């Protein structure tokens, strides 16, 4: 290999490496920052507790999946949308929107979020992990 070719390969590798490191470095930093600002993972002892944050609903999710995630019966969600449960259980929110409400973008997702909020079971009260002492001394 000629010295010119060698120099070109070395320069190309260093240049490409720097570009990739720069690009993914910035993205990794932002992802790490976002990741740290998230709330801590749910504890394992109450894994059957329903999710309560409706902002986690995405348009790739199906109605039965959302129903299971938020402990809301699927017929309630289908009724709110005014569409039949039959034949629509495996369609995601985007597909349902494109099929039944093509003129209103994002309608199904918004409606499902509203319905979930209205029909979610009340959150279970969580007990404090350590017993607290009464602030006033007991006579």
């Amino acid at each position, binding site marked *: 290999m000629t010295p010119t070719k060698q120099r070109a390969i*070395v320069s*190309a*590798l260093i240049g490409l490496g720097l570009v*990739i490191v720069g690009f993914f*470095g910035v993205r990794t930093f932002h992802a790490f920052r976002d990741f740290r600002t*998230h709330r801590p993972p749910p504890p394992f002892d109450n894994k059957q507790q329903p*999710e309560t944050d409706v902002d986690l609903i995405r348009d*790739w999710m199906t109605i039965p999946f959302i129903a299971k995630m938020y402990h809301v019966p699927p017929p309630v969600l289908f009724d709110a949308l005014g569409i039949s449960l039959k034949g629509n259980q495996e369609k995601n929110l985007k597909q349902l929107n494109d099929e039944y409400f093509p003129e209103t973008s994002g309608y199904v997702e918004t409606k499902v979020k509203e319905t979930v909020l209205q029909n979610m079971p009340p959150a279970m009260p969580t007990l404090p992990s350590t017993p607290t002492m009464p602030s006033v001394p007991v006579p």
Partner: protein
Amino acid sequence: MSDFLLTQIINNGAPIIGAIVFISALGAPFPCTLILVAAGAFSRQGILPWHTTALIGLSSVVVGDSLSYAMGHYARGPIQRRFGQSEKWLKAEAFFNRWGGMSIFLTRFLITGIAVPVNLIAGTSSITFRRFFLYDLTGEAVWIFGYGGLGYLFGTQWEAVSEFLSNMSGLSLGLLILGAGLWLGVRRWQSIEEKKHDAREAQP
């Protein structure tokens, strides 16, 4: 594509994950990190059984990797006839024989972008299938249980984990390319310096 695959996973379960990782092991650019972290989260939510999903995922990806190793293995004859006697090929083969196991292991979960080329190179090199299988199975187990485990641990917040891991993998690849460039650069510089030194000594 990710959205389509995620919908298929929640509708059809573990076999779809098996199919995705199998096809991906043959070179199709599927977002497997995202799929695995999501699968862990779906297991936590009770959508997928974690043990069956992990078993199907692990066996599918190992079969896919073995097939791409076999492709390299069957191309070994023509490649050796063409390059087998060249000094550079022998050097590259010796290098891969020394570091191949570690390369196979690390590219399963850390620098996943070059896993398929590594499988093909492993097939064309003199690394035995048994050795390849051992490193592959160990690395893929770390991938499946590590990434899936993070999804399981973080539950519905798996998207943030997946975003971080995907970018981390790209960063590792960039660091590898940069490291290779710097290493070659230093070697080239040393070789030039040696030649200059020899030339100075040869002068009367």
